[in-house]
Structures are given as structure tokens and as C-alpha cells.
């Protein structure tokens, strides 16, 4: 009846009750253990696990920053951003990657080489990384993709922005260009590293590189909640990126375009500068190339074309090209001689076409000679014989000081362009240090006509001319426009003040003493006189006027009679190769000389003569004579420069009003 019954039943019951009691006690302990564990996870380690859970669910997507624009003085965009259509694929999200790729190849008409490249890129990156199939779809392709989109699961047409240079090759050397950021860019620049996203374009050279940190802007950030499979569930946060700073340049697109036109099919450079404000109006190096080619990775063919072009488009001749200045140095030589009282303006030399000095024959460019010439005529007709004699008396070291003072042998834009060269203005000390040999007196003679060791960049010649043309005052060349920088009126007043100050000093002191001593460098010298006696500068400028505007002047054929446009200048023809006696006798026409051996043609000028405002330098590599190859280009350019002046002043007034 009762299970077991009796004593046995009682014992059975007491056993089960006792054991159940033990069991219950054990249960309480185990429950206690579980509660302890819960407490340790949820209370003690809560922060750690909350972080881990957020790490699980939140993903950030950094958007490419939008690069700041470049605009010219008139507000024309010369580097901006274009909307582009791109095609992205995230391989992980694609069911059948190969099928999709083959469909895309057919739809977009991708050639097999590009196709292989894409597949290779795919194999190098993780399956959740975005694969960019095309960075720049044409509108047709974009429309086609959208039409077939329902069959192309995983393909994502994306609207993006890309750098655009609307003036193609016209500003290439001045601006530089951008291309995909390389490993090196990331290592060298923290800012690039910080805002890097795949496919980011950064400046590779020129202003694009120098001002990278201002231009780059900041990334937009999209924060998404994602599920365990990485699928975006909802957007938590969106931080809009900030566009990089727009940079306004001092250049004039129209003048720059004309420089391009003038140097078409030639190798060379043109630089134009405001002689008071130091603003660069134009700077062009020819041949140029289209910077847009670099945006999506330049094609092999295009790259080879640039690389193998004998005229070397990659060189920025304006600041990187070093050439003997030839006769364009003569105004400085003349000024140096006058300033050092080596000769007076009355000093005369009889030019017979050649002169014997130190056992060697030195030829004037004119075989028949110029007859008796004084300094003014020597500059006007560019008589070499006169300059040989004058340089001999001056000596190379005094010439060196004057040349350096006026901007030769120093970088014009220190730091703005990595590739800028400083050139070379020789001195006896330099030769001893650099070549370990003593200076030979004959070398002074050829230095005096801008040959030999002397090497300058076209931009340096432009600055030299500008600092002569403004009456001999130091200016600060600039290419970035700054509203706050000194106005023309203020600079002029400053120069006038400094002129008067210097005049009284000069009349009181014994002239020779402090002149040759180099004063301290930097902006403290800004707008200060570079001369000892301004009459000397005026004399040189007048002689340059004669050279262009008087009969027998070397650039007479390029003159403009209209006072509004009238300019003054100095030609230069610099030898690439020493002319042998035989060649001199043959007197070959330029077309009969091999291209590489032809003379460089140079011309420096300023204008309008009455009240000068602009200086320029023209350089045509292997162009032949300066008078026939370089000066005519200046003539064409000057009309534009003067015509644009009014326009420019209007803009300046307007921008000043905005302050």
C-alpha cells in the first residue's frame, strides 16, 4: 500500500527529505554563483562590455574631403571640383562577383587591360573594401548602368567630386597638379594621413602641394549602426566635412592664356610681375601638359608622350630652368659700374668688333663693330666690347653684390615651390670654394655679358627688371593674393619716403663706405632703395628705353609708339655652345644650326614707360636672337597687360571695399 510501508517507509522518506535538503542548499550556492557572475559582468565590467558592444554596432565611414579651389585675381576658377559619376562595388555584398564583373565589362565596354587591372586590385584588397570599377563614368555609361541596375546587384553608381582644371595645360606649372596619394605622401604629411580615404587626391607638385594643408579640407563622417553582417541598418550621425580653403592667386587668366599662346610649339617661359606690389601676373613655362591627365592615373601612352618629348614639358622653366642671362644682365652690370664709380656716364670705348685682352680675343656680337660708344649707346645697341672693358674695371665681386641685391642668385619664392632653383652669380670666393681654382680675369669679361658661370631663372630676370623699373626699390614677389597686403599707393608712398631718407644719408655720408656692405636680409629691407644714387638707376632705365624705342636699338622693331603701351627693355641672346672661329666665319642662319646648339633668346622689359607698373621676362629656349625671337612676344603681351590694368584696378578697389 504505502510504498514500502512501516519502518522501511519511514527511512525511505527521511532519506529523500534529507537529501532534498542537501540539494536545496547546493542550489542556493549555485544560484549565488550565477548572481555573482551576473554582477561581475553587468556591474563591474559594464563599461568594458558597453564599449565592446558599441564597437560591434557602430561603423564610421569617412567621406573624401572636398578640396579648396584656386581662383585667379578676377575670381575665375582655375582649379575646382567637378561632380563625377563613379561605379563602386563591394565584393562582399555581391552574390556572384565574376558574373557581375563580366556584365559590367560588357555594359561599360571596359578593355581587357583595364579589366585585368580591376581584377588584380580586387585580389589585393579585402572583400569588404570598396572596389572602384570606374572613377569617371561618362553620362552615357552612368545612364546605362542605372538602366541595368536591377540586374547588377552589388554595383553602386556614386556621385562624387573630383579635381578639375578647366584651363587644361595653361596653369600646370604654376599650380602643379593632384594625383592619388602615395605611400610617401602619407608618411611625409600628417594632415594627409589624418584625412586619407581610398582614392584621395593630393597635390604632387607646385602650389597644390605647397598649400596642401590649407586646401585639403576635412572629411565628412557618416556613422552607421551595422548588424553582425556589416550591413548598414541606420545612420546615427553625419558630420559634414569642411571644404578646404579657397586660394586666390594674383595671376590673370587672360594674360596667362596669352603667354600660352605666344609660346605655343616653343620651349620657354614668360613671367609678368607688378613692379610695386610684387604680384605675379602670369608665369608660364612651355611646353606644358594637361594636369587633368593625372587625376585618374595617367595612361602609359600619355606619360611616355610627356616623358619623351624632347622639349621636356615636366620642367618648370620659369623657376627651375637655369640659363645664362646673356645681355639682359647688362643693365645690372652698367648700374654696378656707375654705383661703384668705376666709370662715369661719359666713359667711351672704341668698338672694332673684337678686343684682345689677356692674350685672348673677345668678340662683339657685331663683327663690324659699333665704333665709339658711350654707356647709353652700349646699352642701347648691346655693345659687348664696351661691357668687356667696363667689367674688367668693375671686377666680378662688385658685380656679384649688385646682381644679388636685385634678386639674382636667390630663390624668388622661397618655399612656395619645392622645385625652385636659386641659380648662380659667380664671385672669386665662390669659385675658390666650389671649383677649388682661382678666378681668371678673362672670366670677368664674359660674366659682364651674362655668359660663363652665371645662371639665372626667367623669374629672377623678371624680378630684377621689376626692381629696376620701380626706381630701384626692393619688393616682395607674391603669387597668393592677400587683401591685407600693402596697396600700390602705400608702397609708392613708402618708397618715396625711403628715397628721401636715403638721399639725405647719401649726401651726408662718404658714399663708398656702407654701400658694398650687404645689409641684413628679410622684409626689413622691403621698399628700401637698392641703389646708392638713384640717378644711376634712372640712367639705366633711360638707356633701356633707347634700346627699344630709338633707331638702332636692339629691340627697336618691337617698339610700340603709343605712349599708353610704350615699354622699355633689353634683349639677350645667350650662347649654349662656345662659337668656334669657323662658325663665326660661316655666320650660319639659325635654321642651319642644330636645335640643341641654337642660342637662347631673352628679353626683359617694363612699361608703360612714362609711369611703369609691370615688368616681364621672355625666354625662348634655343629661340635664336633675343631681338627677333623674344622681344616681339613682349610687344604682343604688353598691349594685353596694359589693357587689363584698368580691369585689375577695378577688382582691387572692389575687394578693398568689401573689407
Amino acid at each position: 500500500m504505502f510504498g514500502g510501508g512501516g519502518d522501511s517507509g519511514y527511512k525511505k522518506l527521511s532519506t529523500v527529505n534529507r537529501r532534498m535538503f542537501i540539494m536545496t542548499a547546493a542550489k542556493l550556492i549555485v544560484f549565488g554563483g550565477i548572481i555573482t557572475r551576473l554582477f561581475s559582468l553587468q556591474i563591474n565590467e559594464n563599461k568594458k562590455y558597453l564599449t565592446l558592444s558599441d564597437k560591434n554596432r557602430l561603423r564610421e565611414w569617412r567621406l573624401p574631403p572636398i578640396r579648396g579651389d584656386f581662383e585667379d585675381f578676377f575670381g575665375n576658377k582655375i582649379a575646382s571640383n567637378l561632380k563625377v559619376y563613379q561605379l563602386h562595388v563591394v565584393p562582399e555584398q555581391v552574390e556572384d562577383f565574376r558574373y557581375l564583373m563580366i556584365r559590367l565589362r560588357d555594359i561599360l565596354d571596359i578593355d581587357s587591360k583595364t579589366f585585368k587591372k580591376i581584377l588584380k586590385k580586387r585580389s589585393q584588397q579585402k572583400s569588404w573594401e570598396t572596389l572602384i570599377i570606374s572613377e569617371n563614368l561618362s553620362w552615357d555609361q552612368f545612364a546605362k548602368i542605372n538602366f541595368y541596375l536591377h540586374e547588377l546587384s552589388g554595383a553602386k553608381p556614386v556621385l562624387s567630386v573630383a579635381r578639375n582644371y578647366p584651363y587644361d595645360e595653361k596653369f600646370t606649372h604654376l599650380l602643379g597638379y593632384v594625383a592619388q596619394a602615395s605611400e610617401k605622401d602619407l608618411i611625409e604629411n600628417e594632415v594627409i594621413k589624418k584625412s586619407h580615404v581610398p582614392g584621395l587626391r593630393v597635390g604632387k607638385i607646385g602650389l597644390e602641394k605647397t598649400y596642401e594643408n590649407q586646401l585639403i579640407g576635412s572629411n565628412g563622417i557618416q556613422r552607421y549602426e551595422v548588424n553582425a553582417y556589416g550591413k548598414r541598418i541606420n545612420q546615427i550621425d553625419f558630420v559634414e566635412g569642411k571644404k578646404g580653403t579657397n586660394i586666390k592667386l594674383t595671376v590673370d587668366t587672360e594674360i596667362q592664356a596669352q603667354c600660352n599662346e605666344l609660346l605655343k610649339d616653343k620651349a620657354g617661359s614668360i613671367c609678368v610681375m607688378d613692379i610695386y606690389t610684387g604680384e605675379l601676373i602670369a608665369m608660364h613655362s612651355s611646353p606644358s601638359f594637361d594636369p587633368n591627365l593625372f587625376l585618374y592615373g595617367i595612361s602609359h601612352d600619355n606619360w611616355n608622350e610627356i616623358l619623351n618629348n624632347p622639349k621636356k614639358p615636366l620642367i618648370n622653366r620659369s623657376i627651375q630652368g637655369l640659363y645664362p642671362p646673356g645681355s639682359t644682365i647688362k643693365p645690372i652690370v652698367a648700374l654696378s659700374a656707375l654705383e661703384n664709380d668705376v666709370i662715369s656716364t661719359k666713359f667711351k670705348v672704341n668698338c672694332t668688333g673684337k678686343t684682345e685682352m689677356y692674350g685672348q680675343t673677345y668678340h662683339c656680337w657685331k663683327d663690324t663693330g659699333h665704333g665709339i660708344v658711350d654707356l647709353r649707346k652700349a646699352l642701347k645697341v648691346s655693345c659687348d666690347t664696351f661691357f668687356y672693358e667696363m667689367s674688367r674695371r668693375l671686377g666680378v665681386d662688385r658685380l656679384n653684390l649688385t646682381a644679388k641685391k636685385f634678386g639674382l642668385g636667390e630663390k624668388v619664392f622661397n618655399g612656395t615651390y619645392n622645385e625652385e632653383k636659386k641659380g648662380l652669380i659667380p664671385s672669386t670666393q665662390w669659385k675658390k670654394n666650389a671649383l677649388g681654382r682661382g678666378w681668371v680675369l678673362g672670366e670677368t669679361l664674359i660674366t659682364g655679358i651674362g655668359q660663363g658661370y652665371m645662371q639665372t631663372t626667367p623669374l629672377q630676370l623678371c624680378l630684377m627688371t621689376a626692381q629696376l623699373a620701380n626706381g630701384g626699390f626692393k619688393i616682395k614677389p607674391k603669387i597668393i593674393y592677400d587683401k591685407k597686403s600693402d596697396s600700390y599707393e602705400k608702397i609708392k608712398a613708402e618708397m618715396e619716403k625711403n628715397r628721401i631718407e636715403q638721399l639725405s644719408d647719401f649726401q651726408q655720408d662718404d658714399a663708398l663706405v656702407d654701400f658694398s656692405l650687404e645689409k641684413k636680409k628679410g622684409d626689413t629691407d622691403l621698399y628700401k632703395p637698392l641703389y646708392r644714387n638713384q640717378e644711376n638707376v634712372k640712367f639705366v632705365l633711360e638707356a633701356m628705353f633707347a634700346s627699344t624705342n630709338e633707331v638702332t636699338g636692339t629691340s627697336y622693331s618691337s617698339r610700340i609708339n603709343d605712349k599708353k603701351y610704350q615699354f622699355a627693355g633689353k634683349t639677350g641672346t645667350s650662347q649654349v655652345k662656345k662659337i668656334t672661329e669657323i662658325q663665326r666665319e660661316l655666320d650660319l642662319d639659325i635654321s642651319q644650326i642644330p636645335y640643341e646648339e641654337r642660342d637662347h633668346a631673352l628679353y626683359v622689359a617694363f612699361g608703360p614707360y612714362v609711369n611703369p607698373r609691370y615688368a616681364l621676362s621672355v625666354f625662348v629656349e634655343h629661340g635664336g636672337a633675343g631681338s627677333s625671337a623674344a622681344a616681339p612676344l613682349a610687344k604682343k603681351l604688353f598691349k594685353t597687360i596694359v589693357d587689363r590694368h584698368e580691369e585689375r584696378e577695378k577688382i582691387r578697389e572692389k575687394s578693398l571695399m568689401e573689407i
Partner: protein
Amino acid sequence: MFKETALSGQTTFFQKLRSMDYILLVCILILGVVSSLAMYATDGGELLYHTKSHVLRFIIFFIMMFVLSFLNIRFWHATGYLFYIIVLGLLIWASLYGITASGSQRWVDLYFINLQPSELMKIAIIVCFAKFYHRAQINQINNFKNLLVPMMVLILPILLVVSQPDLGTSILIALSGIIVLWLAGINLKYFIYSGLFLLISLPFVIAFLKPYQKLRILTFFNPDKDPLGAGYQIIQSKIAIGSGGLTGKGFLKGTQGYLEFLPEKHTDFIFTLFSEEHGFIGSLALLFIYGVIIYRVIDIGKNARSFFGKLFCFGFASSIFVFITVNMSMVLGLLPIVGSPLPIMSYGGSSMLATMIGFSIVMSTKIYQKQLIA
């Protein structure tokens, strides 16, 4: 005997109704509601398949439990062996013609329900043992014959379940059985002997384990070794529970849950999801409800006059406790991941059916607590 029953028995339906254990009933209902809400959360806050079928099952099985509670405890005693044999038969059927899902053949198709007999075995083994020891004399319990038969009764279903393969359920069946055996009075030394024997044979058992089972054990000891592979479940579960904090992330706001980071969140990891959303306080509350249920079942057992009813209640209470602690320890990273549902809370019809049958026997014990069984 029958007469006596009729005399002392609670004759009217209302008397029976009144003698039900309402605290237990309310706790089961609360669990039903809580589990339905948790299921709703696993469905991402939508009334989807899992929620609907869980709610439906709970309602049906609860009503079933309620009705079966009025069956006389003698019925359960009389059919104790039959119940075991039917479930054993189903297990054999499952091993022959069962439905295979995720590499394990553990379901039989009963047309209206896909039944997992191994879950029912967790209860059947208790009923069977309760009946066996109801008769047995205390001085004969440790006889060789009386040791061998229960051993066979226990080992047979375990072998069948292990071969499905389903390690988790077989361990739980074994634990259910062993607890009842111990409660019934089997000498402790036999458990120690068999424990030692198991320890010695462990290397052979391990050799017998499927690779994924070995991996799970290895992973338990070092979950961070392979965070995206085998250790993923444990790591994600700990992150979910840990990030819940004191008060939890809020109902339907458990990010680990709705963003699919939690594996098997409907079934074995339902507590993880619950704990993430309701935090330490919520988890304590849930544990409290389970505690009350266990307490009530033990209390009913204490007051039962029949040894069958008493032993079943004690065994069932202990089994439920084991199921709960194994499941929680697992999701808390205290035990390796073995498939083990949380009673009532987890999604799964067979498990709920088994638990509800258990409750109905307990309730029947309560209603007929003065009933004696021959």
C-alpha cells in the same frame, strides 16, 4: 482502497480547483508573458513567426497543463513506465526515421508537431524512476539488481540521444536521472565509483566526440583564441550581458540582439537577450521567479503523501534547477556551449511540452496530495 480514496478524496471540481497551487500558476503565467515579450524582442519588435508560435504554444500547453492537472496522481503512477517506453520508442523512431536539422537527427514528424523526444525524456526518466522507487524497499535499493535496472533505463536513452548527436540534451537527461537516483537513496559511493570510471574513460569519450563538440570544449577554455569562429558565441553573449548593466538597454533596445550579433537568440541564448535589455535587475527578477517556482515544487513534494509524487516533485524541481543553471552558466561563459534550453523562456515546442507535463504532474500531486498510491 478506492473507497478510501472516495471518502478522503476531494470530490468536487471546485475543491480541486481551490487546492491548486496558485503561486506556481501565476509564476508560470508570468514566465509565459516574459518569454513572449523576449521572443517579440528577438523578432526585432515585430509580431513575427517566432513570437506568434511561441505565444500560441504557451497558451495551448498552459491550458493542457491546467486540464491534465486534474488527472489523478495515480494515473501518472500507473502510466509511469508506459510514458518512458513511449518516449523511448519515439527516440528509436527518431534515430531511424527522424528529421535531420543542422547535422543532428533529433526530431520525429508527428504531422501536427515536429517533436523532439529527447526533451520529453528529461521528464519521462523522472516519472519512470519515481515509479520504480515508489515500490522499492529502502534496504533493497542498493541491491545489484536494483542498481542494474535503473542504470540500463538511464543509459539506453542517453546512448540514443548522444548518437543523434546531441551532447547537451543527453547530459541533461543524465543529470535528471542521476539526481533522482541519488534522492531515492542510492549510496553515494556508487556515484563516486561511476564518476571515477567516467573520468578514466574520458579520453575515449573525447575520441568519440564530433570535431565541433571538441572545438566547443576547447573554445570554452579560451574563447578569445578564435573570436570570429568558435569563440564567437561566448564572446558576443558576454558582451550582450555585460553591456546590459544595472538596468539594461531597455525593451527592444538590445543592440546585440536586434543587430544579429547574438547567435541562437530565440533558443539557447534567450537569457542573454533578456539580460541585455533588462540588465542586472531584470535578470535577478527572472531568477527570483524561477526560484519561487522551484521552491513551490519542492514544497508540494514535501506535503505529498505518496512517495511517487514526492520523488517526482523533488526530481523535477532539481532538474528544472539544473536546466536553468546549465543554460545560464553557458551563456555567462561559465560552462562550454552545449545545447540546453531555458525552461519556458526558450523557443521550442518539445521543451515547453515536457516542462508543462512536468508541471501538470506537480499540480496533480498538489491537488491529490493526500492521495495514497498502492
